[in-house]
């Protein structure tokens, strides 16, 4: 292990580490702690210029009630779920199939197709913006949840296929050969042999894509206009415009908006990190 395990060092180093660790965590999370504190501050604190000190007026209930009552934040969050969940399902389904095709079969252009999916991942969104917006307008999907879902699904398919293909390729090929010998159809191989083995990859992908899509802001501003379909990132931006200088309310809104991915992250941390770090430990 590197660096030297702390247990093997002397007392002073251990003490120092024991102090440095929580302290650095505190400093690192200062911005987030700041938001959390602001979200429970009373207006009086802000008027008095107490933006960063310890709150003297606690208004947690009032602030959060105000956010839920006076703003469509719940509606925004609902939209975010309506966009995120189908996208996760769609992208995972498409990429399981595509990943299976690219990972199991050997055919001409296999690698070329794979590279197109991988490369598509890295292109700047802006090159897609005008035509995708146009396409959505023509399909009548502009400014609808469905339009956003379709685009996200398509785009995320690139990354997900890359991920699934690499995962499936690592599976022992004997499994597939054995199934063929037993007379399984190709679909059965996919459904009964390979898919069950990809469960950890699916979990990792699902968690990851959920976070990506939930936090998407760019496409929400490009493809959605009205509150009726606006996800919470875009919603937060417009709340910030309406509540200039009412930091406590924007903060409460931000906390509420950040909650779902944060919960998912803490509940499924292992999968999340497995997804994110795919390839970081093999070479």
């Amino acid at each position, binding site marked *: 292990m590197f660096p030297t395990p702390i247990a093997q060092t002397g007392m002073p180093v251990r003490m120092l580490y024991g102090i440095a660790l929580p302290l650095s965590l505190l400093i690192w999370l200062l911005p987030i702690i700041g938001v959390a504190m602001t979200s429970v501050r009373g207006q009086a604190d802000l008027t008095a210029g107490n933006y960063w000190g310890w709150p003297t007026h606690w208004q947690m209930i009032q602030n959060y009630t105000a956010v839920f009552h006076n703003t469509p934040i719940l509606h925004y969050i609902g939209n975010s779920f309506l966009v995120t969940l189908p996208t996760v399902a769609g992208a995972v389904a498409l990429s399981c199939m595509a990943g299976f095709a690219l990972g199991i079969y050997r055919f001409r252009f296999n690698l070329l197709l794979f590279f197109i999916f991988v490369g598509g991942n890295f292109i700047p969104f802006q090159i897609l913006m005008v035509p995708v917006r146009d396409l959505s307008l023509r399909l*009548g999907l502009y*400014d609808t949840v469905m339009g956003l879902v379709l685009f996200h699904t398509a785009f995320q398919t690139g990354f997900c296929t890359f991920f699934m293909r690499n995962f499936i390729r690592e599976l022992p090929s004997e499994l597939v050969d054995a199934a063929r010998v037993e007379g399984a159809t190709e679909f059965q191989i996919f459904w009964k042999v390979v898919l069950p083995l990809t469960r950890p990859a699916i979990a990792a992908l699902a968690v990851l894509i959920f976070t990506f899509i939930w936090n998407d802001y760019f496409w929400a501003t490009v493809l959605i*206009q009205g509150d009726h379909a606006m996800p919470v990132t875009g919603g937060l931006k*417009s709340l910030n415009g309406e509540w200039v200088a009412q930091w406590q309310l924007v903060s409460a809104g931000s906390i509420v908006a950040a909650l779902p991915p944060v919960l998912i992250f803490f509940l499924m941390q292992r999968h999340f990190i497995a997804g994110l770090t795919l390839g970081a430990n093999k070479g």
Partner: protein
Amino acid sequence: MNFGKHCKRLALTTALAMSTLAAQAGELVINTDASDPAPKAAFEAVVKDFEAANPDVKVKINTFDHEGFKTSIRNFLSAEAPDVVTWYAGNRMAPFVNAGLLDDVSDVWAKEGLSDKLKSAEASMTINGKKWGVPYTYYQWGIYYRKDIFARLGINPPKTWPELLAACAKLKADKITPFAIGSKQTWPTGGWFDYLDLRVNGYEFHMDLTAGKVPYTDKRVQAVFDRWDELVKPGYFLANHPSYMWQEALPAFVKGEAAMYLMGNFAVAPMKEAGLKEEQLGFLPFPSITPNLPRSEDAPTDTVHIPAKARNKVDARRFLAFIARADTQSKMNGILGQLPVNKQARQPDDTYLKAGFAMLSSAHALAQFYDRDALPEMAKAGMDGFQRYMLNPDSRNEVLKRLEEVRSRVYK
């Protein structure tokens, strides 16, 4: 008999079916940018009255975020158009008119005699000799100032440029910033340019300039910046203004760290909410600069239009006629805290609106505002340039050269 009964029932169902059809046909979809509380309430009130007066019409309002609306309108005008849409007068509606996205409503104007009733806004609603919408409200711009601070320092509300400069010097000497401004969204800088140009060169020149007929490198534009220099160079504006939106610059004014604020009348409500009393808050028209120049003002006008692709143009016209009425405008503007355009409407009792009404009704002419009078691309470049100049007055010539490049490209 049996047959007759059957017939009757048939007739009844048909009538029912017809009436639901009619209800659908009589649905009027209005897209507004009335996301702020007062405009929202005003629109809800006018719709309620309209529905009461026209029971066969069912109105559906789609409210959009005020800023987002400015981009989304382009999409719904060309894709799924509502029947009525809110927008702004002047050149701001020109791109839509030129793209054939708005309906010519000259017929409504003729039928309701609006050329007389809405006289002050007639010019700004006319393009190519036709009317393209109906104005329902406007508001004045001017300098809001702290009466208490002026009284303490013995300053009289300035009427001329030298008086204004003297007042600024006095304030600055007392460590008070003369002017609050927030330019994170750049449009407040447009208000400054408008007023300086209107006072230095007058309305006609300002209209020529914003219509792209005069180069920005013109001597007369330089003259505007010479005056502007006299405020920027001594540091008479709030420092770091690009960090604040206009609302974020309000606390400095409310706390008395700044004594004046060139703004639209909509600023009065938040100023009062923040604790300023009427005896602390005064209003003064922008001082004169070039002597004997007829006085013109900025008065941005909000309007309603019918998209060319609207489905229910019949009821849309009824709505336009309704919103042009004196009683409707009295009621709406009572809620909005703004001025009705219809001259037969009841005039306001509010101190600041009264002052605004007096100022506007005696004005030589009304401009819309820089970002409504100039074409959008020009306005964007212009206000960016004004912001840059206000932060760094030495960049003046560079800014004007850049604006001239944009002008010669945009107004081909």
